[in-house]
């Protein structure tokens, strides 16, 4: 058996040019699968990538520089080499072709090539995967009735949140509607605090008083429950940026359903009039609750709805496309040429909320089609693997770590106590002396502090 293993691993080494061979069957299999994924042709529906042949690894000494795989027990303590290649093997940076954006009132648009470093790729992957696992965990907790009320899940749309955050600065501002868990995360709130808020416990970011749609962080203004109301708010935040002269901007997100709200057009008008540094982003996931875009909008060209405001339509499933488009828009805003409207074409796997199975107004085949051909995480993974920017087991490790993080967060969120009744009436006013709040009856009086 060992002879067979040595034979095969030596053969693999000759093919791949490695100097150190697999020591165990699992290492051999991993090495084989890597070789297979490197050399198999790209799936036709994926974005075109510039395929560079894998660079032959430099000669390495027997002791690997890569950290040993945590989950793979080595056969002997003396085994130096793990199945993963050293970091020196990976492509540090690659230039990828991305889809050209449709433009409205713009001579030039975002670039059609995107630079991706290994670090960025891993970071975007980690962000998207964390959001994915967090949303699926929320789904699970909701079905167990540990989360109640409204729960609008974002899985499928991860590239939008990751791409936006990659393109703006931490000093910029962002506001969105109720499908907000991903942005709450990308803007700096931990998975633990998010899940805790969903389960309504005192460890939640809003101490259990806000819930799914009302989570906040510095420079993140929620989480807003009233469809469309966040758009004038976002324009106002942009006004503040302009007023204070700090070169910051506001990304103001809304959906294809909200795109028909009158207050959006009021906001567009004032933003254009005053040249506010605001990026209006329509996350078009094709459905406003149970109504398809075609059934709700006389014009589904959401990027043109700003009329006199320039617009860009972007592939919202490709994190790099989103990043480049938002970067382009941000530069425009910082040059005082704002506002700008952007449409991210994306898709949600879940229904509108947890009360909506999501299959009465669209087919399961449609959902499955997007999942298999256009999933944002799979797209990035493919781009990274085919360009030798990461290894399968590295990403798998990351997946395992993320699952663990989310699971621990969920357990904490389930065990954390609910807010105290003593806290119930606090936070009505800021910087006010304590006041009394009437309870349900005249003899019930609560104290309220700021």
């Amino acid at each position, binding site marked *: 058996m060992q002879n067979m293993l040595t034979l095969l691993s030596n053969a693999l080494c000759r093919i791949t040019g490695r100097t150190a061979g697999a020591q165990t069957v699992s290492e051999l299999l991993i090495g084989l699968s890597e070789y297979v994924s490197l050399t198999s042709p790209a799936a036709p529906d994926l974005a075109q990538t510039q395929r560079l042949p894998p660079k032959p690894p430099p000669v390495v000494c027997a002791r690997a520089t890569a950290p040993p795989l945590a989950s793979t027990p080595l056969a002997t303590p003396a085994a130096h080499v793990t199945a993963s290649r050293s970091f020196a093997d990976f492509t540090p940076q690659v230039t990828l072709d991305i889809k050209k954006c449709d433009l409205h009132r713009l001579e030039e648009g975002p670039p059609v090539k995107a630079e991706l470093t290994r670090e960025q790729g891993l970071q975007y992957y980690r962000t998207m995967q964390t959001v994915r696992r967090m949303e699926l965990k929320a789904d699970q907790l909701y079905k167990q009735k540990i989360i109640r009320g409204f729960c609008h899940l974002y899985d499928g749309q991860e590239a939008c949140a990751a791409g936006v955050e990659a393109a703006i600065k931490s000093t910029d501002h962002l506001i969105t509607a109720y499908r907000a868990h991903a942005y709450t995360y990308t803007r700096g709130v931990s998975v633990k605090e998010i899940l805790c808020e969903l389960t309504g416990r005192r460890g939640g970011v*809003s*101490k259990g*008083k806000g819930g799914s749609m*009302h989570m906040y962080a510095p420079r993140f203004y929620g989480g807003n429950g009233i469809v469309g109301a966040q758009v004038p*708010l976002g324009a*106002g935040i942009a006004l503040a940026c302009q007023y204070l002269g700090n070169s910051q901007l506001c990304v103001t997100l809304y959906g294809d359903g909200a795109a028909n709200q009158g207050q959006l057009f*009021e*906001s567009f*008008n004032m933003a254009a009039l005053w040249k506010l540094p605001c990026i209006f982003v329509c996350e078009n996931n094709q459905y406003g609750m149970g109504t398809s875009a075609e059934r709700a909008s006389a014009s589904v060209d959401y990027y043109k709805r700003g009329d006199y405001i320039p617009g860009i339509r972007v592939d919202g499933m490709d994190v790099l496309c989103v990043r480049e488009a938002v970067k382009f828009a941000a530069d425009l805003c910082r040059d005082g040429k704002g506002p700008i409207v952007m449409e991210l074409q994306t898709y949600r796997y879940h229904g509108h909320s947890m009360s909506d199975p999501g299959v009465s107004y669209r087919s399961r085949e449609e959902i499955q089609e997007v999942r298999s051909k256009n999933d944002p995480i799979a797209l990035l993974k493919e781009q990274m693997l085919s360009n030798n920017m990461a290894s399968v087991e590295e990403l798998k490790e990351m997946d395992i770590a993320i699952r663990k993080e989310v699971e621990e967060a969920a357990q904490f969120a389930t065990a954390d106590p609910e807010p105290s009744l003593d806290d119930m009436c606090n936070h009505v006013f800021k910087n006010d002396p304590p006041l009394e709040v009437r309870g349900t009856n005249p003899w019930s009086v609560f104290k309220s502090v700021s």
Partner: protein
Amino acid sequence: MALSVKSVLRSGRNFVSVLRRRAFHRSAPAAVQVTVRDALNQAMDEELERDERVFLLGEEVAQYDGAYKVSRGLWKKYGDRRVIDTPISEMGFTGIAVGAAMAGLRPICEFMTFNFSMQAIDQVINSAAKTYYMSAGLQAVPIVFRGPNGASAGVAAQHSQCFAAWYAHCPGLKVLSPWNSEDAKGLLKSAIRDDNPVVFLENELMYGVAFDMSDEAQSKDFTVPIGKAKLERQGCDVTLVSHSRYVGHCLDAAAVLAKEGIECEVINLRTIRPMDVESIEASVMKTNHLVTVEGGWPQFGVGAEICAKIMEGAAFNYLDAPATRVTGVDIPMPYAKILEDNSVPQIKDIIFSIKKTLNV
């Protein structure tokens, strides 16, 4: 006369202070006459000067000097950045104002009248009032919504509604209703300095009315505390509680009744929410009679809330008669002068109600 003896007897250990309070009312040293409009203008001017983050936006506030000239001269002095004319887009510009407040500025959002605030009321309630609570203290909204409220003269049904009860219903808002120039200036300054959303209900008919403004009130740091009512007139026979323009009507009614030997105590609420119930209770415990006076409709109104609060508190046992509400007539405001005049409380209505309450 019997009534006042009774109240003196009932006052118990306050006997001496009750006697002392019946001394002559001293008038303040010679003061300047300032209209409510100018008082509001001064307040905004001083606060714009004091804090860079304060700015005013609304329809016609800048180049037109304000639809009712309340912001006269401010655009000329402070420019486009601090005084902003908006298009006719209440929901939009109110949301913009709230967003600016969330991001660290201190906007004054003017509604040409509060009737138009209905188009923007979602932003006032759901985006402004509730946010500090929903965020458990992470996100404050330091904003003032101001403008004329209630009946004017001949502007008919869609332009005459009083919104005191609507806004005062909602936790997270402070609702102010000034009567005279000192109220207007001091309360507006307090509202602008407050870190919370404040609804500031002015009255168009009061804009042109001049009042004495004491030296103290003319200072740039003069503020009137939010949540504290003011005793405008002392009396022992009946407590009149009112806000805005009708405080003046109450004082006029009191002057007429004084000649008949009925002494009215007039309380100017100044703040609708949070309401100064203690002041009302203390007064009712002294006079044993309560009449509320407001311009708004009776159902679910400010007077209704005062009555409920008195019933729930210690003062109930001191009432010698049920409390009475004097309110606007329960109809949309008509246009014709005779109809309009009879749709809002007149002095004779207040006098009539007081006498009925006192059973005289």
